[in-house]
């Protein structure tokens, strides 16, 4: 077997299926950070994120022998992790990770300049509001926004992960962003972006 670090995901899956268990270690080290991040954002809880990430890789380990290499490993592992997130959220339905009754500090407006310590503090308040707003989105919208905004997946990859047509992914993304805008506006967070001129880029 080649050096695992130099192999593509597809090659690693192939190697694992051929009996090279070490290939799985490389897949885990390559993807666990990303998966943990996505899970954390979907659930809003770091402890659960660690457990679910571990469980996702355990399930992947069990199922990888039978994994058909038509799909990408990354899409598949995201899919497993998101399914586990959905289960966890269903179990915890009614329990909110976020207190909606928190006192509301003054929320600044985002402005584009180099961040001073004050800006950083204000930025963290905005980040908290963003986190809360994301938790208020529907599961479907939240997943799409997280996969696109934070995981950097393409529309096609998200479609593959969620088993949806690309157009549905875009529609969910659009609706999610519009809802986010409304939630953030209610919280007093507005991002000053100039309106593009007629030659929009």
């Amino acid at each position, binding site marked *: 077997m080649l050096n695992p670090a130099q192999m593509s995901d597809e090659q690693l899956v192939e190697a694992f299926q051929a009996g090279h268990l070490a290939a799985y270690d490389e897949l885990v080290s390559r993807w666990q950070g990303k998966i943990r991040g996505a899970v954390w954002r979907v659930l809003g809880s770091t402890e659960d994120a660690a457990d679910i990430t571990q469980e996702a890789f355990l399930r992947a380990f069990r199922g990888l022998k039978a994994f058909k290499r038509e799909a990408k490993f990354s899409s598949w592992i995201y899919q497993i992790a998101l399914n586990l997130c959905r289960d966890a959220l269903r179990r915890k339905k009614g329990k909110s990770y976020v207190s909606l009754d928190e006192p509301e500090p003054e929320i600044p407006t985002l402005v584009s300049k180099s961040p001073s310590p004050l800006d950083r503090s204000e930025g963290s308040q905005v980040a908290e509001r*963003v986190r809360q707003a994301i938790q208020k989105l529907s599961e479907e919208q939240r997943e799409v926004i997280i996969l696109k905004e934070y995981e950097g997946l393409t529309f096609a990859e998200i479609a593959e992960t969620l088993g949806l047509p690309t157009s549905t992914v875009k529609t969910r993304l659009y609706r999610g962003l519009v809802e986010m805008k409304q939630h953030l506006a209610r919280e007093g967070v507005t*991002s000053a*972006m100039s309106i593009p001129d007629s030659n929009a880029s």
Partner: protein
Amino acid sequence: MTALTCEALRDDIISLLYDDGELAERSRAREHLAQCVACRIEYADLKGVRKSLGTWSLPVPAEIAPARTTPKWLHTGFAAAAGLALGIGITTAGRGLLSPVAPAPQTASVTAPAGTSSQTQYVSFEQFQEALKAQDARHSQEIERLRQSLVQNSGSAPAGPIRVSDGSAAAFERMLRASEERQTRAFEARLVGLRNENDLQRQYDMAQVAAGLAYIDSRTGADAARTSELMKNLVRVTAKPQDR
């Protein structure tokens, strides 16, 4: 621009917003935005939302020190080398004061005569040696003057070569100790990091072993059931007719 057109081009606008998807979609969106003010405003709003989304970063995980890329002896070696260099420096700097015969200087510079350009001048080896000797002599004279002024100030001449003061030795000792403490702290931090790493790895390995064991258990159970079934059949087939 009709609302229907705007609705129909929404996917294209999303493609443009994320710079993803087909080129034709993004071109259509650009053309539409050029004509539709309402969509331009919404596009700017969505960009603003994306900017706000960018402020939410993941919490920093418990820091695990990066793997050591240089062996420990190298760090210790550096500290020792630094100490040695410092020691040599102190000794060398002091020798001019200690010994009546000035040592050869570690470095020398050729100063340009007054009125000449300050640019670097290239001189022959002999000229360089002479310049060194002249500088050496100048330094010796200065040192001698300083020694005499010290003797006059203290009122008695020193009996022999002056030793590096206890104060300097103590300072050197302190520096060495501080360096050792820093090394120890760094080593301990690394140990903690390694321990965390090991714990995580152990948990993961245990989970894998448990999964493997569960699989083996299920296989063993199925095999045992099948064997038992076979044995029963065997017994039934081989039993005497009156026993059946």
